[in-house]
């Protein structure tokens, strides 16, 4: 007697789940945060399909739940002078910096029924970025115990996520494309002694349009998560 199981993969030919790509341009962190909260609620209620928000943030330092206040090196005066906000993020991980030239991706996914493993989810996000970097001829990898994407020249992407009730994800990844890396000196990025932060442009040695990286990220994301893309529009 064959009992169908809940986690059985969809039969061949069945439509893949839809992933809506929203390009939001330059969006302040606080606004993106509110938008995510709203989308999480709507995703949980099944009102919208899975989402991938692609955007950039104006200069901001955000604190994760694992943050130590002493990891923010810039004092309020320096932060003011540099125009950097400091905010609580509501995600896992330590302190990080976001700013222009950094591609931020916030997937709002329902991990049910077949992806209910947060470590697998983290590894999948890393996989997306490793593939994007590979497309630029950059060899990058995971380092055990240090979530994120690493190259020989340092960390190129940071990851910190939240899983809300019902296995709905928010927050996500930040890939340095043309980030002014000197801003990382205002914090102790969630790295380790002796390692540095780097960017895609730094690694390839030429300017790279962030819109191009966003497009490749969307398609790598759809492949890794086995979703079919639906463009909602917008510009980065």
């Amino acid at each position, binding site marked *: 007697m064959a009992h169908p199981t809940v986690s059985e993969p969809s039969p061949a030919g069945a439509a893949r789940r839809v992933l809506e790509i929203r390009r939001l341009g330059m969006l302040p962190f606080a606004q993106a945060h509110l938008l995510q909260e709203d989308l999480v609620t709507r995703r949980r209620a099944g009102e919208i399909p899975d989402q991938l928000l692609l955007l950039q943030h104006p200069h901001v330092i955000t604190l994760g739940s694992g943050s130590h206040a002493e990891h923010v090196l810039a004092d309020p005066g320096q932060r003011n002078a540099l125009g950097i906000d400091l905010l609580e993020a509501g995600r896992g991980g330590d302190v990080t910096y976001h700013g222009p030239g950094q591609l931020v991706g916030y997937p709002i996914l329902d991990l049910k029924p077949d992806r209910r493993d947060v470590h697998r*989810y983290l590894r999948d996000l890393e996989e997306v970025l490793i593939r994007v970097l590979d497309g630029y001829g950059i060899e990058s990898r995971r380092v055990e115990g240090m979530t994120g994407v690493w190259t020989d020249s340092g960390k190129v992407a940071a990851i910190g996520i939240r899983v809300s009730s019902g296995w709905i994800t928010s927050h996500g990844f930040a890939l340095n494309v043309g980030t002014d890396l000197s801003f990382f000196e205002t914090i102790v990025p969630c790295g380790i002694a*002796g390692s540095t932060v780097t960017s895609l442009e730094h690694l390839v040695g030429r300017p790279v349009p962030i819109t191009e990286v966003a497009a490749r990220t969307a398609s790598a994301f759809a492949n890794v998560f086995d979703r079919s893309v639906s463009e909602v529009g917008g510009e980065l």
Partner: protein
Amino acid sequence: MTRIEVAMPQMGESIAEGTVSKWLKKVGDSVERDEPILEISTDKVDAEIPAPQSGILVEVSVQEGETVEVGTVVAYIDTSARVAVPAKGEEASAAKQEQPRAAAPAAAPQPPSGDGEMTEEQRIRQRSTPVVRRMAEEHGVDLASLEGKGSGHAGRVTKQDLLQYLGQEGEASVGSPPPPAKAAPGAPSISKPAPSIVPSSPVAAPRASPAASPALPPSEFWKTFYSQVQNPEFPVREGDEVVTMDKIRRLTAEHMTLAKRIAPHVHTFIEIDFTKVDGLRKANAKKWQEQGARVSFTAFVAWAVSRLLREFPIVNATVSGNNVIYRGHVNIGIAVDLDPGLIVPVIRDADDLSLVGIGKKVVDLADRARKRALSPEEIQGATFTITNPGVLGTLVGLPIIPKGTAAILGTGAIEKRVVVVEDPATGQDSMAIRKRTIFSLGYDHRIVDGADGARFLARLKQLLEEFPDDA
């Protein structure tokens, strides 16, 4: 009543535990099914844990900041209770009543109890977790004396409170602990709670019986001891300067504290004659220079150690839980002074490298360490460490064993000393000037016995004093 358990959920195959980062609901709150009641965090992930069913949150068994294994019960929900939650106003006025310590105990709302008045012990149980009770017992602390002083829910004494209290005791002169909560004159019995420990909201839901409290594993205390480094704070005096520790300093501080906590350290010393090594360095200096190599004393030591570690697998090992992990590779960490700061780049598979190969690697790693250009892999995976406390002329040091390894070698200053030597032919003693140094081996006494440490040093002495010409 129907109590159901809320367990730490399985968030992923490789996730064994989670830390309670925030309680979104408190005891007495009504919760809807699927409504988030707490947040947990594991490295890069924050997750909300929803209520499995609707009801009243009647007990919280894990405090914020505590790390527990998957499956551990973190809370209980009474699914039958549908008790009205007090309105904001009532709660506020109740809170006000608690303020004046002199308020008559009789005026304080009593936790409802179906089985008569509670004993002192029962009340303490309600105000502390098993971990706290066990710790208190171990340290001879009367929990009753801390009642109501706790920072946990309803004045509950948390582990943190107790640790802090014990810390103060150690530093002395903080004043005697408050007297045990005795009943005010005229109070009918000591079992009535003193006003200061009254729950902050008059919870109507029946409380858990002590027997139902889930026991935390006895390893809980040690988990905290091994995993949380807290640097106590000290008052700043006039003229002082306060500087935030940078990344390297902070990580170093944490690692050093943990490493010292984890391994019982023993250090053994030996004096080694470097005449042979010094001679080899001088004789080959030109040849090595032409090869673009610089072979430092450290390289000689690393070469010798990497050969010896195969002879002494227990020194190239680490304690892991109840196991010993014998490392399959010989990866030598070399401490490099960054002034300020220190970093330990790793020579991987050092036992495969020649003396010159190690020499080149040492120069390269030290060079890039100073330029802050090491990749993460290059500072991970050491199975043994060499540090050179003698670099500025000091005799030798007592280095701390990096966690995850069994030993560290400290090398002293190499100096000319007058020593007594015996002529092998005639047996005649005479005085000679020799280059000598003292080495110290720090080792984890859980697995490396004193004799093993001594044998390792004796072999190292032999190898360095009779250093092969073809290394």
